[in-house]
């Protein structure tokens, strides 16, 4: 059955967006990512104009992350205080990032810089997470003991920062500047690269903020929710690119997928979640590298947006 999409100005078989929503929602509930890095290119592949795809996806993520945050909150896996501090940083970072794009565009060749940064970021983050979670999985299997936490120079330095505060849900104590600063860095990168940044925020929370993986997932969804509300409004208000019908079809799948993902995620260990996410990030990296090197079938595409 086909439905006509009033803003995308195209017709789509309804099983496509519902199915895509289900799959990406599942990833969202499992790993705490928005999934824009998968959803947007898939929607473009199915004939949705690129600008509408990105804007509508953010609308859909509002629903999926609400569903996912709710599911994780029920079992106490959302650190609202941490989420709030990350949001402050993310908001400031977003504003800086938008200016950054203007500077890059003025310099010329912005696309090259952005694409390269994106590929490098994905590659480094994916590889690091993969190696780290693989080695900690092995360690646990061999010694069956939790290794005492090593105090690195970096973490000692962090403890000297002012405004130390306890994040009860995450079981960590940090300066509140830390989530604000790193939220800001992710916000800048996300704005420049035109992605939600979940795949960067999750590693930041795991490796820098030292939060337990299950709380990371819930908290990440919480802050993605707010980011996507803002992005959806701006896209609808300034660019008129949100397709309500497409968003509804996507969220029919994604809200259910997020619930299933959250339930399924509880059955997995933190390391297992990390290693699967690392593999997904690496697969996406390889896909982008192929896209960059293989001759495209079309050399022209719709202008506007990323």
């Amino acid at each position, binding site marked *: 059955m*086909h*439905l*006509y999409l*009033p*803003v995308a*100005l*195209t*017709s789509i078989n309804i099983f496509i967006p519902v199915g895509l929503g289900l799959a990406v929602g599942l990833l969202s509930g499992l790993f705490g990512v928005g999934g824009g890095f998968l959803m947007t290119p898939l929607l473009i592949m199915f*004939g949705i104009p690129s600008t509408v795809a990105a804007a509508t996806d953010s*609308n*859909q993520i*509002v*629903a*999926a*992350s*609400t*569903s*996912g*945050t*709710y*599911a994780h909150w*029920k079992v106490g896996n959302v650190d609202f205080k941490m989420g709030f501090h990350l949001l402050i940083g993310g908001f400031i970072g977003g504003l800086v990032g938008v200016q950054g794009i203007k500077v890059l565009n003025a310099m010329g060749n912005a*696309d*090259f810089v952005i*694409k390269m940064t994106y590929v490098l970021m994905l590659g480094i983050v994916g590889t690091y997470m993969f190696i780290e979670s693989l080695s900690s999985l092995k360690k646990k299997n061999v010694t069956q003991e939790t290794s005492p936490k090593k105090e690195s120079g970096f973490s000692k330095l962090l403890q000297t920062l002012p405004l130390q505060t306890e994040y009860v849900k995450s079981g960590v104590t940090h300066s509140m500047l830390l989530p604000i600063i790193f939220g800001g860095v992710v916000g800048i990168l996300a704005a420049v690269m035109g992605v939600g940044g979940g795949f960067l925020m999750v590693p930041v929370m795991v490796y820098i903020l030292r939060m337990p993986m299950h709380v990371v997932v819930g908290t990440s969804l919480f802050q993605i929710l707010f980011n996507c*509300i803002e992005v*959806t*409004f701006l*896209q*609808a*208000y*300034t660019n*008129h690119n*949100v*397709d*309500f*019908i497409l*968003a*509804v079809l996507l*969220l*029919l799948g994604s*809200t*259910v997928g*997020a*619930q*299933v993902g*959250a*339930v399924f995620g509880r059955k997995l260990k933190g390391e297992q979640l990390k290693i699967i996410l690392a593999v997904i990030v690496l697969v996406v990296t390889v896909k982008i590298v192929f896209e*960059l*090197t*293989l*001759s*495209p*079938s*079309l*050399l*022209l*595409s*719709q*202008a506007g947006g990323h």
Partner: protein
Amino acid sequence: MKTVNSEQSSVIRLRQRIVTPITILIILIVSIGIASAQLTAKANHDHIKIDFFYHGSTVSVSGVTDPGTDLIIKIASPEGHEKLKQKGKVGGILWMNTGTLNFEHVPNLYSVHSTKNIEELLAPKELDTYVIGLPALSRHVGLNPSAGEEEKARWFGEFVKYKEASKLYASSSGRIEIKEKDGRHTYYINTEWPYQAPPGDYLVTVYAVKNGKVVDTAESKVLVEQVGIVKSLSGMAKNNAALYGIISIVSALGAGFGVGLVFRKGGGAH
């Protein structure tokens, strides 16, 4: 423009219009040289309504023609401007967007159907005059930033590929059926109307060709319009953007919470 003068044909055309009005939704004939022309054109669907379940349509063009003439049918949207991102190789190996190209005087939808290959029917100069066929269109369009002839031809080729991918550009030859009945020659072609074609006015032009010259033309219009929910939603997205954005967000929040509640009640989580 030369026209074939025949009083008899006018009578036949008149009779056809009186006899078959029920089978035709609306006939719109704007023949050039109405008093004398033999050639007529009508589109069976001259008002395509885009509703919620729209998935493209078909448009058939038919009319009366003169025996011994060939026909070229051009369906096009008004000419406009298209801004597209251009991909190119950077550093010899990486494909990425290298800039934007502006195509001027290009129709968004353009299809040409003919009884024979158009190059056999008309000389390039004639084709250029009426902008019939892709080579003629290629010479007609402007490219900005401007490029040399070779570069322009290459990018126009890419432009056509881009349009063909969404079925907006098409061509065929030999698909027009010509029938003779009671001494009257009629032509008919059924074409797919792509759902990718946006709302707007489209012009169907039929050219009668004899001895390498266009001897007659006839036109008909196709109006594509959004109706119902589709029209109200796309109107709201443009004209009431803030409210549209808020409704989109609130619906998404509501759906997310709703599904969360259903799952709790359904005992999916513990």
